Structure formats: C-alpha cells, structure tokens
C-alpha cells in the first residue's frame, strides 16, 4: 500500500512524507508528519523555536543521518521513491535536494571554485563546461553582475548577503530539483534579505523550494504553502494566503498573532 501511495502521487508532488516520527535519543522530535511538497512552489515551515521545523527539513535530504542517536520511522517519497529505502544512494539524493543553511558557509577558496566544487566532484572536468555551469549558477542566484570581475578572489571577501547567494549558486551548480533553506536570511541585513527573497521567487520557476523561517512576514511574502509546527507536530498545512488570513487551528491563530511563541 505504501508503494502504491508513492506510485500514485500527484504529478505536482515532489516530496511526500508519510507518518514521519523522529527521535533524538529518547526525545520525540517529530510526530506523525504527513505532508506534500508541490513542484515549482515555495513551501514555508514556521513555528516557535524547537518545534521541529529544522529537523523536518533535514529529513528531506537525510541530513539527520549524521546525527548520533537520531532514529526515524516513516517514509519520505521523492519523485515516488522512498529515500529511506536501503538501496538509496544518499549522495545522489543530496545532489537532487540541495540545502542552504542559516549562516552563509562558503568554502575558503575562490568564488569560482566554490561554485565549481560540486560539479567537479560529480566528475565534470572540462574547463569550458565548468565555466558555463559557474556562470549559469551565478546568474541564476543573481550574483553574476557583482562577482564576474573577481571570480578568482576569495569567497570570504564577499558580504554576508553575497556569500549566501554564492551558497545558493553552489547548490544550483549540481542541478538540484529541490532547494531546502534553513532560515537563509536570519543572519542578513534587510537589503540582503530582500535580494534573497526576490531570488527565491525567481528560483521557483525552475526549482521547488522549502524554507524554514522564523519570520512570519517573510513566509507570507514568498511562500505558496505554509506549514505551522508546534512541539514536533504539523498543526496546520495549507495555502499561505489561507494560513495567514484565516488559519483553521486556534494554535496557528495564536502563534501568528503573537499570542504565544
């Protein structure tokens, strides 16, 4: 039946979780999460600190595998295939599902090498091809105009906002389908934040984006779907317009109107 659910997934669904439960040691961090991520849409996860939203986003590309004592039950279908099946190539999954973190984390190398790093380890060796990928990725991440004349300089010399867009370019260079973003603008100033938000809106034309944010206005601005999480549970999931204008659950209402959290 589970496999059927995977096979019968709607064409527009890229990721579907089914009854995900996750424990860190004895701590039950996620409880019965079932949700769908739609193709070419931005899905936002909101909720108070410690509610499990970052844990959930890490479930989507098996980033929790590297955490000691983490145990997960349930299924996560990516394009119809359960990524927790034993025969799954995790590296391939993480190539298809890229991740951007809260703090920009460029490698201590040149701008060019940062973006070329992924393709290189995936065996792209021809210089012309690499250059093409680097240029395309930097253009997609709206950084090209700012760095085209300093591709050979250290990425650490870029501003915070530029570094974050570089990290997005680095993720795009391996041609993912989904981009996961864990509070990608919380370390950035408002102007850099606005650029990333504009970029996310552009990116969804080609990619599917899942973003964790503690900034509700940001979720309301850029996402198509929003999930509200509380104490490891997905309390409400729906279209962003509906969740922010007319939430169905009282808990959601209380959270987004600032009555708790």
């Amino acid at each position, binding site marked *: 039946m589970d496999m059927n659910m995977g096979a019968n997934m709607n064409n527009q669904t890229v990721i579907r979780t089914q009854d995900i439960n996750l424990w860190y040691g004895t701590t039950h961090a996620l409880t019965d999460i079932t949700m769908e991520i739609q193709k070419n849409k931005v899905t936002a996860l909101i909720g108070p600190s410690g509610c499990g939203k970052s844990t959930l986003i890490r479930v989507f590309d098996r980033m929790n595998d590297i955490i000691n004592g983490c145990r997960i039950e349930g299924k996560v279908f990516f394009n119809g295939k359960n990524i927790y099946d034993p025969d799954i190539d995790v590296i391939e999954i993480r190539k298809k599902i890229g991740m951007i973190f809260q703090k920009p984390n460029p490698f201590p190398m040149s701008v060019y090498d940062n973006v070329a790093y992924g393709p290189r380890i995936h065996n792209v060796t021809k210089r012309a091809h690499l250059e093409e990928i680097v240029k395309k990725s930097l253009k997609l991440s709206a950084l090209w105009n700012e760095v085209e004349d300093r591709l050979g300089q250290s990425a650490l010399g870029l501003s915070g906002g530029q570094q974050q867009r570089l990290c997005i370019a680095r993720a795009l260079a391996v041609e993912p389908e989904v981009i996961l973003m864990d509070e990608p603008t919380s370390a950035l100033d408002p102007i850099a934040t606005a650029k990333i938000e504009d970029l996310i809106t552009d990116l969804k034309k080609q990619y599917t984006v899942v973003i964790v944010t503690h900034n*509700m*206005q940001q979720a*309301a601005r850029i996402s198509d779907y929003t999930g509200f999480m509380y104490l490891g549970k997905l309390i409400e999931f729906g279209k962003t317009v509906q969740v*922010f*204008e*007319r*939430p169905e659950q009282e808990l*959601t*209402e209380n959270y*987004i*109107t*600032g*009555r708790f959290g």
Partner: protein
Amino acid sequence: MVERFHVKLDDMKEEVLKMGFLAEEMLEKSVIALKDQDPELAEEIISKKEKIAALDFNIEKDVLRLVPLYQPMAKDMRTIACILKMITYLTRIGRYGKDIAKVVPELIQEAPLCKLVNIPYMAEIVGSMIHDALKAFETEDLTLIADFDERDDKVDALRYSIFRECISYMTENPRNITQCAHYIMIARYLERCADHACKIAEKIHYMVTGEHIEIG
C-alpha cells in the same frame, strides 16, 4: 512588543465604538429634530460634524501607523481591515445625520404635509441596524447581524413607499415640491445608512470568521 500591539488594538476598537455611537446619535437625533421641528437640536448635530471627521482621521492615522510597525496577521489583520472600512462607513452615516439636520430649518417654515410616520419608523430600523452592528463589533456575536438582509429589505420598501407618497403630493400640488423633494432625499439618506450598516456587518463577519459574505 506584540502585547503592546494588542493593547493598542483594544484602544482602537474603543475609539471605533465611540465614533460609531456618535454616528448613530447624529442620525437618530436628526430625525428627532425633524419630527419635533427643533432647530436647536439640528444645530447641535451639525456642530458634531468636525468631531466625527477628527475621529475618522485619527483612527485612520493610528491604523496606518500600526500596520507597518507590527505587521498584523490572521484575526489581528482582519480586525485592522474591518476598522479601516468601518470608519469610512461610520463617517458617511454621521454626515447623513448632518445632512438631515441641515434641512430642518427649511422644513419648519411650512406646516408638515403629513405626519412623517414612515421616516421616523425607517430611522428606527436603520438606527437598530447601526446599533446592532456596533454591538456585534464589540462582542463578536454574529447573531446580532444575522437578519440584516430582511431589515435592509424593509428599509428599501419604506423608501419606495415614501417616494411614491411624495410623488402623489407633488402631482396634487406643485407647492409641495420643495418639502417632498426634501423627504425623498431624507428617505434616500436613511436607505444609504442601512446599506452602510450592511457593509459594516459584512466586515464584522469577515473579522470574526475570515469569510467574505454579501448582505443586502
């Protein structure tokens, strides 16, 4: 910070109610002034025009300050949206009261054509709609506005009957035209006030439930 927002929102709701009861009073007293042929009362109503305009201005200013500062969501946002629309409707109602009061000195120069039975009755229904809408805003009790469709229909029917009656008087004697023209306008003002009360009720329904409905 959010706590402060909710305190401010409660204060703003108080101000809207104050404005609402002022608009209600202006309309109600204007019809009393008309019925009792009381120019002093009419003058008192006209003098309240600035007060209601000031409330409208100040509440709008507060709303436009709160929105960017706190970026309200969900019911808070719906309440803010409701307030912003309500103050416009309430201003119109107050101004219709003033418009009715303005014709009182003119109408008392001549003996009334009829006992004006329909106008006070119409005003009573409209007044009850405004009052119930304000109470619904205060208490969020939607049963208070549940029969607004029927009440609005009744007001529309009364306006039409006043219109027909006045046409008859004017046909009988052209000397009646001035008075009748005023009566027709007053009936029209009252009907518009009922429409505004319906619009307010729609916004309150949206504020409470998040659903848009159409009344009247």
